[in-house]
């Protein structure tokens, strides 16, 4: 018991009145020190860093048609008589585009567009969901109508049509387009959550004590919705990237600026799997999977940060 006793002595000293709560904790002991969160964030960070470094180091002109030899395998491997070289470490595809350059340009773009779209969708969704759920009445009716109506319209239809009507869908346009389809889900979920949370004891208490709706929203309800908020954001990012990749794989949204989806579309329509040119489809897929896995880890990690109960679950 001696060790424990000495522990106790030191533990109670610094600030006995308020217990152990406001002890200055080093980063290592903050709730943010979470394996999954850190793993996800650091792998994603490394990926982004690598891509950024690549951006400045690697010749991006190699991402365009005819810039490199055709059908070159990754360095050291052999494919149909050609041996991969360091000039094109990840190989090339059948129009002479360098895979490394394609990934360096494509991956950050996909990630950023997806994230931007998710943020826009989430902010809109949360605001509308809160207003609808909390204020009720007219506001609720209008929000629900808007959600229902826009949710009813097949997203693909709108995406394809807007996409073909816009001359050149730039970065922000694309993100905005994608966010058109992510806010409704968030709105509905948040509305439902707010509705059931509105009756829980602490919100009632806050109401009885005359707090303003704004305070209740952001001080009482919001913290309790953190898990939803965070999972919504990361899932929204994944979902937007998936939607975009899906569109591009369908052949839509193809621009000169390469993206992972367009590369996959090229690979699929040229039967890359059948050709045995695995680097053509597997590398963009691996990067996509890596991005999704990181987002997933971040989501799960954030859940645990927001909800300590989860840490051992």
């Amino acid at each position: 018991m001696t060790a424990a006793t000495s522990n106790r002595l030191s533990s109670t000293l610094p600030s006995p009145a308020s217990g152990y709560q406001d002890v200055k904790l080093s980063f290592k002991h903050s709730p943010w020190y979470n394996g999954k969160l850190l793993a996800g964030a650091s792998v994603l960070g490394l990926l982004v860093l690598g891509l950024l470094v690549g951006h400045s180091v690697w010749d991006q002109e190699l991402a365009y048609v005819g810039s490199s030899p055709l059908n070159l395998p990754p360095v050291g491997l052999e494919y149909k008589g050609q041996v991969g070289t360091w000039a094109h470490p990840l190989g090339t595809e059948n129009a002479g585009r360098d895979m490394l350059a394609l990934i360096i340009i494509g991956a950050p773009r996909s990630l950023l567009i997806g994230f931007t779209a998710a943020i826009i969708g989430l902010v809109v969704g949360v605001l509308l969901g809160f207003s609808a759920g909390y204020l009720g009445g007219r506001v609720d009716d209008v929000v629900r109508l808007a959600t229902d109506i826009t949710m009813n319209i097949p997203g693909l239809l709108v995406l394809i049509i807007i996409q073909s009507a816009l001359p050149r869908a730039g970065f922000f346009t694309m993100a905005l387009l994608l966010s058109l389809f992510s806010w409704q889900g968030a709105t509905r979920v948040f509305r439902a959550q707010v509705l059931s949370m509105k009756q829980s004891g602490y919100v009632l208490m806050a109401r009885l004590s005359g707090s303003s709706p704004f305070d209740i929203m952001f001080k009482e309800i919001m913290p309790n919705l953190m898990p939803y908020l965070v999972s919504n954001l990361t899932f929204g990012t994944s979902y937007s990237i998936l939607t975009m990749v899906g569109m591009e794989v369908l052949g839509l949204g193809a621009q000169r600026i390469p993206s992972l989806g367009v590369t996959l579309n090229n690979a699929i329509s040229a039967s890359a799997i059948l050709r045995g040119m695995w680097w053509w489809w597997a590398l963009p897929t691996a990067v996509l999977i890596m991005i999704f896995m990181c987002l997933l880890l971040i989501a799960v990690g954030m859940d645990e940060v927001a909800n300590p109960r989860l840490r051992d679950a």
Partner: protein
Amino acid sequence: MTTDQVMTIQNLSVEYPTPERTVFAVNDISFEIKRGEILGLIGESGSGKTTAANAILRLLERPGRVAGGQVWLNGETELLSLPEHEFRQLRWSELALVSQGAMNSLNPTMRVRDQIADGIRAHETNPAALTKRALQARIHELLTMVGLPDRVYRVYPHELSGGMKQRVGIAMAVALSPALVIADEPTSALDVITQRVVAQTLLDIRDRLGISVLLIGHDIALMAQLADRIAVMYDGHIVEAGPVTEVLKSPAHPYTRMLMDSMPSLLERKPLVVVDEAAKLEFSHYLKPPLRFVEVAPGHRVAQFD
């Protein structure tokens, strides 16, 4: 062997380990609850009352864990070292809980009758008591006992007011006539009138069934009304304990005095807080276990503070 004491807590400590150091939320506390007695455990929020209750009920949330001590039930069973499945047998049949949050303590998607029944079903060994009819009669009886109308039997929790919900909670807790009911702030979040009704219900039940109650709370007035004895908790320690009238009339520990001074008026609804941080610090460094207690009157003990 039956003793006079339903529960004896000896040197109970609860720690929250973090990689750097270990925080003790409950620090070497000892007390006992006598048969048929209501023991009030009073303190500010964060003083460790609820943690202590959770430790006794083995409901501590991770990473919190019991660092030491023993909890004896009826002087014969040590609860903390009991295997999980054996302890589960004792839950509810010997050791029941009236939960803190009045609004949230009932499962919103289950009818009241089913929530009362599943506790009975889990522990009742007599098959005759488990027939539909017997259960129904028993639940009706329980509801009547806590003064609830018959219709409550069928309804969902959201159709009940806060006070009614808490009375359902009490009915549920006494369904198996346990030896001890731990009532964790049973009246918080209720208005004053309802508080009185709930408190009265608790008293009635105790009188009728002879059940011991560990009443946790920070409402001194309520304690005065209900408890036979009280124990005052501060920063994980019990600093003073004794018969309720004795302690309230002549508080011996300075913290108890501060607590009584800061008691909110009966009509005000706010948590009990002692604002004078400096005064609190003054005696804090005496809180080094093991504490030495002085008996200032029969059964009235106070931790040494100077």
